[in-house]
């Protein structure tokens, strides 16, 4: 075996080993890498009550209620299986609306998520407003929205 072949083998085996190690580490730490928990995970998994968490999902249609004379807003975050009620006081991002993906940060207190930050999540679909209008009119809108599996977290928790 020539020296350059030896070096090539060494680099190839090294990269393979490194890739495997990284894959194992990332799988092991999967729970800490996820940016947010879905309502299903939050409902079914016993999570420590005093820990700061992020809850992500869609803002449930018809669930947004603003309190009179204050900036307190109540809504539900859903993954279409479970939903978690959220209370938040503050300014919402422009993209916040019913049916929109959001990520909220705060604490879960007695089944109600007390959020102190609300971030809007937008999907990977880009189109001009006229195209969106036309899709809604032709009734194909829901097909497209349904295909956006990543709009929120997976509807059913992986485990």
């Amino acid at each position: 075996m020539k020296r350059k072949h030896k070096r090539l083998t060494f680099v190839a085996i090294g990269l393979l080993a490194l890739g495997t190690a990284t894959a194992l580490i990332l799988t092991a730490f999967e729970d800490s890498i996820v940016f947010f928990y879905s309502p299903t995970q939050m409902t079914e998994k016993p999570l420590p009550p005093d820990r700061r968490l992020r809850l992500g999902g869609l803002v449930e249609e018809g669930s947004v209620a603003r309190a009179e004379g204050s900036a307190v807003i109540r809504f539900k975050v859903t993954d279409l299986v479970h939903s978690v009620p959220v209370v938040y006081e503050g300014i919402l991002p422009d993209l916040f609306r019913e049916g929109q993906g959001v990520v909220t940060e705060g604490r879960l207190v007695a089944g109600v998520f007390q959020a102190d930050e609300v971030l809007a999540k937008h999907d990977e679909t880009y189109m001009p407003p006229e195209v969106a209008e036309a899709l809604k009119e032709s009734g194909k809108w829901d097909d497209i929205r349904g295909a956006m599996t990543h709009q929120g977290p997976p509807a059913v928790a992986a485990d």
Partner: protein
Amino acid sequence: MLRYANPNRFMRLARVLTPWSAGLAVLLTAAGLWFALVDSPPDYQQGETVRIMYVHVPAAWMSLFCYVVMAVSAGVGVIWKHPVADVAAKASAPVGAAFTVITLISGAFWGKPMWGAWWVWDARLTAELVLLFLYLGYIALIHAFDDPARGLKAGAVLALVGVINVPIIKFSVDWWNTLHQPASVVKMGGPSIDGSMLVPLLLMALAFKAYYIYVLLVKMRAEITAGKVRALRLRQVHGTA
């Protein structure tokens, strides 16, 4: 590839390609910017803010592309003792680092109005920040040795180890739930981006690529010339003309 291990042969080719790549970069940037800023429609959800995409996404693609070029060149340089590959790795690093900085800054400007945050520690953003540190580490490492050859060897190890971060960045949005939205262009089932927005995006991506080729050629030519000057000086000092 091994044919161009001869720096002189590479220099002849580079001299021809440099003006062409520069011209191509100017043309593509002009066309891309016109389509991106004037001709393309606003987004149905994000409005005019979507135009940040035409800088952010090509820069992000380039930050990965430059890293792959750098790592492969560094690997070829170490395995085949290819002097031009060493130069290519060294020249790619600062360009890739610059594209990474552009990605992070334009991303912050996009994140604030859309998400409501300049920065979040989700998997995609964190991995991109790690990429910047890999570039900076590589640049620091290759200059940390008195003997440039040893510096390049140490740098190659770092570059090759760091290449594992590239698929992590690309697939982070599919493997974990992140605030960053999943891929729109390179994904199963075709792009989920309207043609009127895809054209300027791809034009800008090509413009960035042409610019990268131009800068890479200029930097590599400068580096090879500097190496020749160094060799001549050494010969002068040692008096063996």
